[in-house]
């Protein structure tokens, strides 16, 4: 009996050890959409860690999964590229929009096209146009690459560019930002992504839409990047929100051709 009692306590203690390492330290668990993570990047995150002393454990996934992890208590804060739905708001989630990011239509640098109309975008992504020839006169098959259906990039593009019509594609990537990698190696490829993910890529070209450059405030495809908390944010999450609203991050947003929401 005594042996069982000791064994029971040993098992309980062993179970508490990993839990303590997760929750006892001054660490914050951040579930983040791949686009948001790409937009803000490692240098900013490193700067936050250094100035605040808070350790950030980042889990990069789709926006849907990031919000789901937040709802299920796996993280204190999430970074999302899509708006919350009614059910999520009723569950007590609070969305703090940080910036608006133009969604770029990206092609390989050797692609002859430099701009598209909204109608051409729809016809390319619904499979009506399969060659660059009718668009820019050069014979080259179009390879349509899209981020996974579960990603905010896919949902936002379907809503903004396709007006909720179906998207036909040749390849689908699991992570939204992986589409950039795919386009880099396929000369006829076209895809879409938050423009910061393709910002410094020399092998990638971002197309103007309806004569509007990506830096234009009237560019048609704009998505909002937000931080999401479950109810009142924890002190660490609040510090992170304040950092995202700081002068440093606002300058970063502006210099990278994004637009701060709270200004």
């Amino acid at each position, binding site marked *: 009996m005594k042996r069982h009692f000791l064994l029971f306590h040993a098992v309980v203690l062993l179970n508490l050890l990993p839990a303590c390492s997760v929750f006892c330290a*001054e*660490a914050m668990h951040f579930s983040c959409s791949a686009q948001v993570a790409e937009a803000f990047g490692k240098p900013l995150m490193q700067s936050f860690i250094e*100035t*605040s*002393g*808070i*350790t950030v454990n980042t889990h990069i996934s789709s926006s849907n999964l990031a919000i789901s992890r937040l709802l299920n208590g796996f993280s204190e804060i999430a970074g999302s590229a899509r*708006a*919350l739905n009614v059910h999520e*708001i*009723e*569950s*007590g989630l*609070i*969305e*703090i*929009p940080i910036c*608006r990011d133009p969604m770029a239509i990206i092609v390989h640098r050797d692609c002859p096209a430099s701009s598209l109309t909204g109608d051409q975008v729809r016809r390319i992504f619904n499979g009506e146009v399969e060659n660059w020839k009718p668009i820019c006169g050069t014979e080259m098959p179009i390879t349509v690459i899209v981020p996974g259906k579960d990603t905010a990039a896919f949902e936002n593009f379907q809503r903004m560019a396709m007006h909720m019509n179906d998207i036909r594609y040749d390849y689908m990537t699991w992570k939204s930002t992986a589409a950039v990698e795919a386009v880099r190696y396929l000369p006829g490829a076209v895809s879409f992504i938050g423009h910061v993910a393709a910002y410094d890529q020399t092998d990638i070209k971002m197309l103007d839409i309806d004569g509007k450059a990506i830096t234009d405030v009237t560019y048609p495809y704009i998505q*909002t990047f937000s931080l999401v908390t479950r109810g*009142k*944010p924890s*002190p*660490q999450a*609040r*510090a992170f*929100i*304040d950092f995202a*609203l*700081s*002068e440093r991050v*606002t300058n970063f947003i502006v210099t990278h051709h994004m637009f701060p*929401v*709270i*200004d």
Partner: protein
Amino acid sequence: MKLRFFRWMVIVPAGLALLTAGCASSLTSSSPRQTTIVEGEKHLSGTVELQFDAFKNPGDRRLRLTQTPMCREMISRETVSRKQLHGVLPAIIEIGFFGLGILDLVVANAIVTNSENRTPIEDVPTGKMVPCAVVQPAADQQVIFQFSGTNTLQYGLTDANGMVELDAPPSPGETAYTNVFVRTGAAKRFAGAVWLMPAP
């Protein structure tokens, strides 16, 4: 047989004990110093920022904003240089015979304690922010309201009691909450979300 037993069980251990007497203290004393970096005491920095909180007045559209001076919890990092405890095993063997091993261990331990030398290196934040003064009304602060589901912003200014009037949201039936921000120079600070519908 008896002699062999006597030799192995008494004489040899006793000889060993005598040989190892004072071993721990002499080995410890002659050991080189070892330096490690440890975390020392926690203390608070001065006020580094203000934490703003927004509360809705029940029954009307007025919000009350408070500000709390926050300090950063710091921990000092220091180098600890000291001699390492050696010769513990021989000292334990001694204990069983004359009890001298205990004295040897006490002396060795004292050598370690006396050799300890602590030098502070730096203060680093622990990541915890702690309120370090009383909560006050956030007077004369520029406030930004952002209504949920929209990017529409409204601006306001708090009075001397930290009160500010919230205008009607652009789509009253659909706006669940409004985020409240306080402008501090070029930066903004999140003061919380105020539910316009019954909070979940």
